[in-house]
């Protein structure tokens, strides 16, 4: 058997990679993909603990996380398309309309 802590370490690694992507990439599409990585890290945690506690509640929470990920992707990509239409760029550091 693989102990639950191994799943937690894997999820921490995926989470950190996602954070690095969110903080360092300029392309907003890749930033959104990194957010999906973070969601997946959370889901691995939830399901590993569901296995450990022999309870299906973690699976239900993971379904809600997947729902939120789908909603976030739809809205985020909609914003991205609207922004690209206006400014012809999707680089995160060129989106500074609200920055003084």
């Amino acid at each position: 058997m693989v102990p639950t802590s191994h799943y937690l370490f894997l999820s921490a690694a995926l989470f950190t990679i996602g954070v690095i992507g969110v903080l360092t990439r300029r392309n907003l599409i890749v930033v959104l993909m990194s957010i999906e990585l973070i969601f997946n890290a959370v889901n691995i945690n939830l399901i590993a603990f569901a296995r450990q506690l022999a309870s299906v509640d973690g699976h239900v929470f993971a379904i809600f996380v997947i729902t939120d990920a789908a909603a976030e992707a739809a809205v985020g990509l909609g914003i991205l398309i609207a922004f690209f239409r206006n400014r012809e760029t999707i680089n995160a550091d060129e989106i500074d309309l609200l920055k003084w």
Partner: protein
Amino acid sequence: MTFYQASFYFFAAVAVASALLVVTRRNPVHSAISLIVTLLSVAGLYLQLQAEFLAAVQIILYIGGVMVLFLFVILLVRLEVTVRQEPFNRQLWIAGFAALVLLAELGVAFYLARGGFSLPAAPPTALQPNTELIGRTLYQNYLLPFEIASLLLLVAMMGAVIMAKQR
């Protein structure tokens, strides 16, 4: 090393390696393909953890739905400009350092608390039949969150359509 352990380490290695490719590739299409590989190996981990329903949801909804959405948006924005630009912003090193500090913190916390995470000998049938149990729990204990999630999806769909609409 049993087959279970070997498959865990295989899926974990593939997931981490392709996640690294997601954040380092210059071309967003390559990032999307790598993300699909990551999602597939995470689905394999779900199968290991007796979450068959979620493995199917991961493949159908994430890879079949969300990632196709990503690829469509990559088609809509101009790629040839992006590919020639610098992929990382100016805060690369300080952000990478902060993320590594975060990883170290998480690792130390998990390492200190590892006694609480040892997988007990839960009956292997505790999560079976998986889909039926999830359905019962979802509609009996989590009915209100389920309805709120459906409302959230409706609002997100309307928001996406309104924002992406041609003016």
